[in-house]
């Protein structure tokens, strides 16, 4: 008899758990919590980008401090993948199948992201704002994958347009990394210049592992370029600028948003970065933009660990999460994945601390339906790493 009692009790408890949890409720969502996952390298070759995940973490804490979203707190699960795709996949699977994530946000790196993209898409788990400007995310588009990071081609177009239209330059050259990052920049520059009826005077490819850039700079110098676009790693960009200075090659350098953290760039280049013009995809660190100030005071000042720096790589974590948070807010009480996708698709000119973000209803043939940001503005590096804003936010078509 006693044994039967136990079985009954157990059945009763399980039934109760089932009822409380709400049968058929959305994975990762309870009455009081929404679980969001994120990976980011805290060790390994890309550890410098680890601050992205820490930025998101502080942002979520700030939201929770204000009472969460419609009464639900955001539970942030972040893990270190050391930029190793095998670990990314392991961690994502573990969190997804263990705790159960409602959605994923950010996630640094093309290779780690590509290792989990199919897994997340097959399960229909939304993923907002991969932190890498790769075409892989939107071409072809995926129903549950929403890109925030602007495409590099777009930045190249904005820079070329400014050089030709505002500065009246005709001789433009590019030094680009020999991969899809660099080639996107090359493509954008060619397209934009074709509109003005001019061609690049030099196209110099550079490999990630090249350690001597003198021959590359020689080619640039021979072309007598008035403007040189830097579509390389931070290290190579700094080397190019430094060698040019040593060779007395006077030219206007322009660079992507990856090199737009001016205090950092000035530090690494020992001051040679001054005068460089860069595209940027978010407000500047010392900008007076009210929302950015709010984030600085309520997220960064409150929750950042000591030694953390308020820079682009930190609040990029907020940039990538903003559209997700906004869409969840618009879901109201009905926090389901299908509803979230609908709400994301209905975002029109949503403005956080980056350019305006818009998505469109899913169309398998239109990459732009999942490319949220298409705005950028240009800044110039001044003495001491200060940034001078050259243009306003502008949409580049």
């Amino acid at each position, binding site marked *: 008899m006693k044994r039967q009692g136990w079985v009954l009790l157990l059945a009763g408890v399980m039934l109760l758990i089932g009822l409380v949890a709400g049968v058929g409720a959305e994975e990762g969502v309870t009455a009081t919590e929404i679980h969001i996952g994120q990976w980011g390298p805290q060790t390994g070759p890309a550890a410098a980008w680890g601050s992205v995940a820490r930025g998101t973490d502080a942002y979520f804490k700030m939201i929770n401090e204000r009472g969460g979203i419609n009464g639900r707190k955001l539970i942030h699960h972040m893990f270190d993948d050391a930029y190793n795709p095998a670990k990314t996949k392991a961690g994502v699977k573990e969190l997804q199948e263990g705790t159960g994530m409602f959605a994923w946000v950010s996630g640094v790196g*093309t290779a780690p992201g590509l290792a989990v993209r199919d897994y997340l898409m097959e399960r229909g788990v939304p993923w907002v704002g991969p932190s890498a400007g790769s075409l892989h995310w939107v071409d072809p588009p995926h129903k549950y994958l929403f890109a925030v990071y602007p495409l590099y081609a777009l930045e190249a177009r904005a820079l070329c347009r400014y050089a030709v239209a505002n500065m009246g330059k005709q001789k433009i050259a590019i030094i680009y990394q020999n991969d899809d990052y660099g080639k996107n920049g090359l493509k954008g520059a060619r397209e934009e210049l074709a509109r003005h009826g001019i061609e690049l005077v030099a196209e110099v490819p550079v490999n990630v592992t090249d350690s001597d850039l003198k021959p590359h700079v020689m080619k640039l110098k021979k072309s007598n370029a008035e403007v040189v676009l830097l579509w390389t790693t931070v290290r190579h960009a700094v080397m190019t600028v430094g060698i040019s200075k040593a060779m007395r090659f006077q030219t206007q350098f322009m660079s992507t948003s990856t090199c737009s953290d001016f205090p950092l760039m000035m530090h690494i280049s020992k001051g040679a970065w001054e005068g460089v013009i860069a595209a940027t995809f978010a407000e500047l660190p010392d900008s007076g933009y009210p929302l950015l100030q709010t984030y600085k005071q309520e997220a960064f000042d409150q929750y950042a660990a000591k030694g953390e720096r308020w820079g682009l790589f930190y609040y990029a974590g907020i940039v990538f999460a903003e559209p997700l948070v906004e869409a969840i807010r618009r879901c109201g009480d009905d926090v389901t994945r299908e509803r979230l996708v609908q709400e994301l698709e209905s975002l029109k000119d949503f403005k956080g601390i980056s350019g305006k973000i818009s998505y469109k209803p899913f169309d398998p043939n239109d990459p732009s339906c999942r490319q949220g940001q298409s705005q950028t503005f240009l800044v110039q590096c001044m003495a001491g790493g200060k940034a001078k804003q050259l243009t306003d936010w502008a949409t580049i078509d």
Partner: protein
Amino acid sequence: MDMKRDYYEDVQLFTSGVVVFWMAIMLAALAIFPFLATSYYIYMANFLAINVIVVIGLNILVGYAGQVSLGHAGFFAIGAYGTVILMTEVHLPFLVALPLAGLIAAGFGFLLGLPSLRLEGPYLAIATLGFGLTITQIIGRIELFGGRQGLHTPELFIGPWHLESDRDFYFLLIPLTILLALTARNLIKTKVGRALIAIRDAEIAAETLGVNLMGYKTLAFAISAFYAGVGGGLYAFVLRFIEPEIFTLLMSIMFLAMVVVGGLGSIMGSITGACLLSWLDLQLRNILSIPYLGKWLEALSQEWFSITGVSNIQLIVFGAILVLIMLFEPLGIFGFWIRAKKYWKTWPF
């Protein structure tokens, strides 16, 4: 005791009923496992199995033949890219492409084996290190290999069987792993194995006994590279995406660490070493969820090591475990096993 009286006793797979019994249990567990576990644990099992394959191969080179390699990530990469390219460009079926890619890796292994005739110890380590680093650079520059943008693996079919999930792949991978482990065990018990061991123990003595140094040393490299190549080919399909930066120096070092921690010159050691270290590699990040200890470690790390907290402590713990194992049992995990066996044989004396 373990006295062997003839050759067949030595090569026997099942030395007693007890061994048969436990082997059967293990096989049954391996067969049931994918039906009980979630896809995450199956993925982890796959990851472990691939490391087991590579480490068994590396142990043949390091543990049995006494050579060293810090370039196995290179063979691993060759296998991964070879398999994918042979399938997408030459349209070979997976079961042909995989061993073929293994053979290509073996070819490179043979070439790398040539300098080993003159180089020893640290010098050989540097030569192989250079190889491992170079291979990924070369792959990164060739358009056919997808350059630095990497390659997606094609859909995997074996005859009519479409392997889609991690579970499907598990059923392919585990039998392959067992097959490769048994092959390695058999190899060691033959003339080749004895020649390799002889070279390891005393090169000159082995040569005077008629062991062809050049033949066997390069053979050891080739076999070892074949295992790494096959492992790499399988790895590509576990990740479903490969790019050159995955195959880092750290990967080569991890393989070597697995061999040493598991136990040099032991198949069982290779298996346990590979399993333990890859498991720690994947799971140590959860160290912070241990009650009390986790919080304390995080605070400690944030206070003294870095703002990132978590991850640094995880690497320190990982390193500490390696040091402790080497300190207390230089023979690796296999050494623990031997000691435990001896202890129980003579128990309670």
